[in-house]
């Protein structure tokens, strides 16, 4: 081994010039993964360090549409040293004619149990104090600015008038609600009595924050066993911000997969860099063999070098990735809606190092093993490549399995990971086939009469189809990068298309929620009388949980289907609502009052495996309601209209406090008047502007799309590095070719034309494969993962093909400068000597 080190060091004395592309590819790929991992770890650490503060207690139990009943409250108080009740709901903050949607948080005197509320002035008690008969409230600055309020001004929530006591700069438990769509107003619950906002059936949630010394695991089990069926939802400091965590997890996994795609692209660069490097070492390997070196020693000499370079690339990548995040943290912390604990975390760095080393070795070992297999004379002769020996193939298989296993393990989503890696492998296979086919076709055409009298074209085709052609490495390196871009391009275009196509034309202007039963008729009458209102739909609704299917727990039958994941909106109806399309079974007769029946959304029923006649149990406000599935309906959830998975016959829910929800489609110019009018007439009814909500969704989707395009851009940068490496490695060959052509009388223009032509042909081939990969990949992601319709988007595809041609052309022409400038005699003398 010592001799191997000595020989390796002697070889490496000359510098790392042959390894620049390899190091750059690994550095960029590893840096991307390390940066994303570090961010994820920092957020996870932030959430875990401050779990109790974010949650506002060690544990929290929540109920939908109701407060805890006496039994539940007794259990909560018995198990906590301190308790605070927080109610949350959406409402409109009204100032004169002006109004804005707000997320109201109604708290008790104990709030906040942990952490501090930061106000622009005074204490919380002072802010909440009642002055001139108006109870105090605090509000986020964004909302106050929008309504033109300053502390001391008045505003209304429902029927109750409040005084703005102070502006809220931050609250400790902000992240529990996830990423909200409306700015917050905090009031004391006691002050809401006259507001009319907490009437029976109103859409609000109650949360009981507990400070407790008891072990959380057993406590959770006990709470869920006792009250789970009544709709209790448990959270504790161990996973305080579930929504945020899920978001971070998914985004992190997705970005790691993009990073993996980047590493795969970089891997192609690693492979071609190692191959080019090995080709320059072939004579040395042969000579070592002639001098008596066994295969093992030669392998060690080159493994030491490859390992050293892979380690260097990985190390640089870790430093760059972690360093970049440390530099960026101060800039993004303020923008993130959740706490971040800045620091260097070993886990993501280990993860990134694992990917770097395994990918680097996976792609580097094959060409090394091929060279080792050849005899010395064959190596000197430049004979064709052999397959590596069995042992080496086994090592490759082990590395590949380690990479796939590691990716699955680290990302925690085996389907997405295997799908991505499978897609990358398939694209590589297709690109390999395209490279091979292109060379064959070029060789055949170059020898045909088609190119008679076109020496430039013949030269280009002969170079693509000839021995030591760059076609394969260019098509592979550029093609994989372009494929990632093409997939993202198709997804992005389809996303935007879906937003543009579906929402503005079909979505309603407003959702009105919390319409009390006695307000429904006058409300609907007011809407129907208004000529500016084109359509109004309403449905009675309450929230409930599907707890059992045919006597078994619903989650056991339906797994993780979204319908059984917590409480859902359930509508109740007597006669079949207008526009209902029953696909199977029968709607109950009007005035029906027998055993409970439910009409289920057809697609969701099929996904869960429900049949007509199945017995379900719904838990509504703590009460179990048995119902039988008697019909299936077609429901479209995509157009922001009214859609309920379950509609229950009205008699089954008699006595349950429900409210109505209405969707109103109106002329855009009449929307403001409509809003003002309804807010004045029915202050407890909250209007949600669909346009604003959609604008928020579009904003969020655009941000996601931008992040995706940026990530794909990073992959493309790696692809470009690889491409430049591939083109650069062909310079000596082109140098010689250009010199010979000049000897034979070719002008520089003609030589340049030939170089440009071959670059364009190879770029177009890579681009065309990428378009195919984009179409298939885009379809797979949209149809299988996002369940959106897929339409092939030609402009994005055209962009990818022309980008491929252009990039290869530019790279080819830049690297053509040296061969064109060189004097033939000098080149040929070196080659011959």
């Amino acid at each position: 081994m010592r001799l191997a080190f000595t020989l390796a060091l002697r070889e490496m004395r000359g510098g790392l010039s042959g390894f620049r592309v390899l190091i750059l590819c690994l550095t960029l790929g590893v840096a991307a993964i390390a940066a994303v991992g570090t961010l994820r770890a920092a957020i996870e650490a932030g959430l875990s360090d401050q779990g109790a503060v974010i949650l506002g207690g060690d544990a929290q139990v929540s109920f939908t549409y109701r407060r805890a009943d006496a039994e539940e409250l007794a259990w909560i108080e018995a198990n906590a040293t301190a308790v605070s009740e927080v109610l949350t709901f959406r409402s409109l903050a009204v100032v004169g004619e002006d109004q804005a949607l707000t997320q109201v948080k109604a708290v008790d005197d104990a709030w906040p149990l942990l952490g501090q509320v930061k106000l622009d002035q005074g204490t919380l008690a002072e802010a909440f104090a009642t002055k001139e008969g108006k109870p105090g409230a605090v509000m986020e600055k964004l909302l106050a600015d929008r309504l033109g309020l300053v502390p001391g001004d008045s505003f209304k929530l429902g029927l109750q008038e409040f005084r703005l006591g102070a502006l809220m700069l931050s609250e400790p438990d902000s992240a529990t609600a996830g990423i909200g769509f409306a700015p917050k107003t905090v009031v004391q619950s006691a002050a809401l009595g006259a507001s009319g906002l907490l009437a029976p059936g109103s859409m609000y949630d109650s949360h009981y924050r507990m400070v407790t010394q008891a072990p959380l695991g057993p406590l959770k089990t006990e709470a869920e066993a006792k009250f789970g069926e009544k709709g209790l939802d448990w959270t504790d400091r161990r996973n305080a911000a579930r929504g945020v965590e899920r978001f971070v997890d998914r985004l992190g996994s997705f970005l790691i997969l993009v990073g993996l795609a980047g590493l795969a692209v970089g891997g192609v660069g690693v492979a071609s860099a190692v191959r080019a490097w090995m080709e320059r070492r072939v004579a040395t390997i042969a000579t070592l063999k002639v001098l008596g070196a066994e295969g093992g020693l030669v392998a060690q000499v080159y493994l030491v070098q490859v390992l050293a370079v892979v380690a260097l690339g990985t190390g640089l990548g870790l430093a760059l990735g972690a360093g970049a995040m440390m530099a960026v943290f101060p800039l993004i912390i303020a923008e993130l809606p959740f706490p971040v604990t800045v620091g260097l975390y070993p886990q993501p760095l280990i993860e990134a190092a694992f990917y770097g080393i395994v990918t680097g070795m996976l792609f580097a070992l094959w060409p090394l093993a091929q060279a080792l297999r050849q005899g010395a004379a064959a190596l000197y002769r430049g004979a064709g490549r052999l397959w590596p020996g069995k042992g080496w193939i086994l090592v490759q298989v082990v590395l590949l399995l380690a990479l796939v296993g590691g990716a699955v393990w680290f990302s925690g989503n085996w389907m997405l990971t295997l799908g991505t890696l499978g897609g990358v492998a398939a694209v590589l296979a297709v690109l390999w086939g395209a490279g091979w086919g292109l060379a064959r076709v070029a060789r055949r055409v170059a020898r045909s009469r088609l190119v008679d009298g076109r020496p430039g074209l013949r030269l280009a085709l002969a170079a693509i189809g000839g021995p030591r052609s760059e076609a394969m490495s260019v098509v592979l390196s550029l093609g994989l990068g372009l494929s990632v871009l093409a997939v993202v391009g198709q997804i992005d275009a389809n996303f935007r298309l879906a937003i543009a196509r579906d929402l503005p034309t079909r979505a309603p202007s407003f959702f009105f929620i919390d319409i009390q039963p006695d307000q429904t008729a006058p409300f609907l009458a007011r809407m129907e009388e208004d000529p500016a209102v084109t359509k109004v739909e309403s449905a009675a609704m309450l929230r409930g949980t599907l707890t059992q299917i045919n006597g078994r727990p619903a989650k056991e039958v339906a797994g993780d289907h979204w319908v059984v994941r917590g409480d859902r909106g359930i509508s109740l109806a007597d006669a079949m609502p207008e526009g209902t399309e029953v696909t199977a079974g029968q709607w109950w007769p009007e005035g029906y009052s027998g055993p409970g029946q439910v009409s289920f959304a057809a697609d969701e029923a099929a996904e869960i495996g429900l049949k007509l006649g199945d017995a379900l149990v719904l838990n509504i406000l703590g009460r179990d309601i048995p119902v039988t599935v008697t019909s299936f309906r077609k429901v479209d959830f995509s157009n922001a209209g009214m859609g309920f998975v379950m509609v229950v016959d009205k008699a089954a829910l008699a006595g349950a406090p429900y409210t109505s929800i209405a969707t109103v489609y109106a002329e855009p110019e009449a929307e403001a008047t409509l809003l003002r009018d309804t807010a004045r007439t029915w202050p407890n009814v909250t209007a949600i502007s669909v346009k604003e909500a959609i604008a928020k969704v579009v904003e969020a989707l655009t941000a996601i799309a931008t992040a995706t395009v940026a990530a794909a851009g990073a992959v493309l940068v790696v692809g470009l590095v690889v491409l430049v490496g591939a083109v650069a490695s062909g310079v000596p060959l082109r140098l010689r070719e250009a010199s010979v052509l000049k000897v034979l009388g070719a002008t520089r223009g003609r030589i340049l034309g030939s170089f440009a032509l071959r670059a364009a042909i190879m770029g177009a081939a890579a681009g065309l494969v990428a378009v195919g990969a984009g179409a298939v990949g885009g379809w797979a992601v949209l149809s299988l993962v996002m369940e959106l319709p897929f339409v092939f988007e030609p402009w994005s595809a055209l962009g990818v093909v022309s980008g491929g041609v252009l990039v290869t052309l530019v790279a080819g022409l830049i690297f053509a400068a040296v061969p064109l400038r060189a004097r033939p005699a000098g080149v040929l003398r070196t080659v011959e000597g």
Partner: protein
Amino acid sequence: MDVLELSGVRLTLDGNAGPVEILRGIDLSVKAGESLALIGPSGSGKSSLLMLMAGLEKATGGKVAALGQDLGAMDEDALARFRRGRMGVVFQSFHLIPTMTALENVAVPLEIAGVANAARLAAEELEAVGLGARKGHYPSQMSGGEQQRVALARASAGRPKLLLADEPTGNLDQANGAAIMDLLFGLRDRHGATLVMVTHAPELAERCDRVVRMADGRLA
């Protein structure tokens, strides 16, 4: 005693246009201490025959035995081990390792064979070929003649019983070529080695004990 014994040796290589028969049944033996020149037109198979004798290529038919060992029965590693200290090979295009100095190039076979004082012995060999002052120079810093002298020093450093030279003066001018031949024969005499040399030059061939002519893959 025969140092080299070839019987019915055939060599067929796969080319792009199909298999190419390089050697078509060679029977040849070389005695210990003998010097043999292989001559013939380009493409007659001389260099390929030399590669077979060195165990750098595998015969596709017949038997090649060197120093009493059947080379066809050995794998790549066994052949590499076999060459250590037994064979020295000199090529027309030198095949020095470009990343190593002259001294290191000469020392490599000794280091691979695990010889102690490899550097000192290598320095002595370089002195013997007149390059004592160029020990720290890289191949790219030396002339063709100097590179070939380094290659000669490297081939003889392990005191081989068999020296194989493939057109050792083919890339050199007349004066350098003559100097190299003097060194080659001097080394061979000093170590009492058997010498097999491929050459196009009749005057070099005449310095050998025996001349064998090849044509079209056969001994003429």
